[in-house]
């Protein structure tokens, strides 16, 4: 029983890690190529979840809704890029942070006006809602396995696009020398818009995958965006490989800390003290780990070599 519980917790951690990777991948893309810090990335994650929730109610099918929500979130991202973000590339990071902070207030309030202050749950179809017995005694929800599979597929797809396509070549070139790429006749503006929309789609994907498990709610993006920053800082800013490894690491540590830290503490102190301290420490665990890693390597585990 103990081992099966551990296995399930490992899967949960993996799932959180995958979601964090989908989010940090978009941020890494926009930061790597455009040198742009987007606080409002979490709002796109929220939009993905809400759009999917609405479409599920409308079409009656989560799968169709999800397939439609992806391009729609990308479109939202494109719109935001055209209206606000495009004006900010030439500015410094402080301006990026402030403007996208304003953007969060707008997007959160817009979502509240459209979808109301309460969250929306998404009902899964029969097929996805079941449980699967992987080993005797180890029962896992099918949807969680699906989330992990889709996330890994998206990661593989991203790897192929960045490393083996012309678009990916431009992205990498843009990341190492923006001015040179535009001098060589590449339409850098369109490239930026495209990459931003791609990041938005990835955030939307994470959002719509999480919505059936948690639910779509206002401010869901603001909670996860900081964890995503921790991932990026630990992985080394601008590094896709770093983001992937750090995301899985954070997902596992956070999940395992929350489930096992109190048992660990009970070995060392009284039950009462452990029950008070464990939740607080496990909530701080990933930040403490960040502090530890940064104390040794201020640039993160895999700093991008080009900057």
């Amino acid at each position, binding site marked *: 029983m103990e081992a099966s519980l551990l296995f399930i917790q490992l899967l949960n951690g993996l799932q959180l890690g995958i979601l964090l990777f989908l989010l940090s991948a978009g941020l890494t893309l926009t930061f790597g190529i455009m040198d742009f810090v987007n606080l409002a990335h979490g709002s796109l994650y929220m939009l993905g979840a809400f759009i999917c929730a609405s479409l599920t109610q409308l079409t009656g099918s989560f799968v169709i809704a999800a397939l439609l929500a992806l391009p729609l979130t990308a479109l939202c991202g494109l719109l935001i890029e055209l209206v606000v973000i495009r004006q900010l590339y030439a500015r410094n990071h402080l301006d990026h942070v402030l403007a996208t902070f304003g953007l969060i207030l707008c997007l959160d309030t817009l979502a509240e006006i459209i979808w109301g202050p309460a969250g929306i749950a998404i009902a899964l179809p029969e097929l996805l809602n079941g449980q699967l017995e992987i080993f005797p005694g180890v029962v896992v929800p099918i949807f969680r396995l699906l989330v992990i599979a889709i996330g890994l597929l998206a990661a593989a797809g991203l790897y192929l696009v960045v490393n083996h396509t012309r678009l990916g070549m431009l992205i990498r070139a843009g990341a190492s020398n923006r001015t040179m790429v535009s001098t060589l006749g590449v339409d850098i503006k369109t490239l930026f818009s495209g990459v931003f929309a791609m990041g938005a789609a990835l955030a939307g994907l994470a959002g719509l995958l999480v919505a059936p498990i948690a639910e779509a709610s206002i401010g869901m993006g*603001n909670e996860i965006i900081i964890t995503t920053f921790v991932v990026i800082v630990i992985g080394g800013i601008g590094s896709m490989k770093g983001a992937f490894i750090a995301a899985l690491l954070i997902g596992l540590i956070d999940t395992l800390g929350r489930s096992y830290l109190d048992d660990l503490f009970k070995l060392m102190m009284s039950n009462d003290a452990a029950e008070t301290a464990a939740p607080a420490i496990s909530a701080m665990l990933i930040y403490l780990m*960040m502090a530890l890693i940064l104390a040794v390597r201020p640039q993160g585990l895999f700093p991008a070599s080009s900057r």
Partner: protein
Amino acid sequence: MNPAVNPKRLIHRASFWINALLLLLLAIVPPVLFITGQPYWLDIFTRLVILALAATALNLILGYGGLVSFGHAAYLGLGAYAVGIPTYHALYGGWEAIASYNGFLHVTIAVSVSALFALLTGAISLRTRGVNFIMITMAFSQMIFYAFVALENYGGDDGLTIDVRSEFPLISLDNPLTLYAISFISLLLTLAIVYKITRSRFGLALQGARSNEERMRSLGVDCYRYQLVAFVISGALCGYAGFLLGNLDTFISPEMMDWTRSGELMFMVILGGASFLCGPIFGAAAFILLEQLLRGFTIHWHLPFGILLILSVLFFRGGLSGVIDKVRSKGSNS
């Protein structure tokens, strides 16, 4: 040129009088509003002054030091809990060592815990620059946020209602006018401290590190140490602002240190004009009064507010004081 007609000097003098007028208004208007039967507005102005104090503290490192700290709400929260936790234990027992209503104890805890937190997190985050620094300060403040959410003893998510204020000899903070006076005098003292610092050798080194860190280092200045000390001073002052905020609200919740609160503090500094002594006060005033105004129109006031913030970044660079500065530099060109 005759110094009497030098436009640069004229404008310099004008900005001095504008600042003086602002402080004078803050000294007179809120008490008058209170006496004429508008206690609600005294509450708003007390909040304004406390947040102006916190923003002035943030300005020391953000404006003068060029360090974009996105985690200063954490100090407000720590300062407020420094009032809440000892009071909680004095009310309901437990943890004898700190259980007390004594205001001096509360201030001491607020300032020293904030300074310690600033020292620990600053030592790590100041080793990085730029975006990394922004994200790390943000993450550390969120760490404190989640820690207090998880502390069920002190109300966790729901916060801590204490309904009593720190006790000092001779004065009572339960009198709203006294609390306002204390907050306002604290703001003046903070302004004096920040002014003194920016004029000192230490402050000049800090500003030098903002404009060109490499040059400062080649001059033999250890930028890291200066920045860390400034970071600690800023955090400690912000913690003191938190102590005042805790006494104003007597309801202390993790929400006070949510990262969006840090963003608001930053906006106050930038809106008013970073690296101007009174800029953050203008910023805090603009921020709070705008919030009050928009709240009157719609419950969805965050939408127009957010749009205004975006527009201010796009078209209103340098903030309110920046406009004065722009005129000033034009004056010096002519």
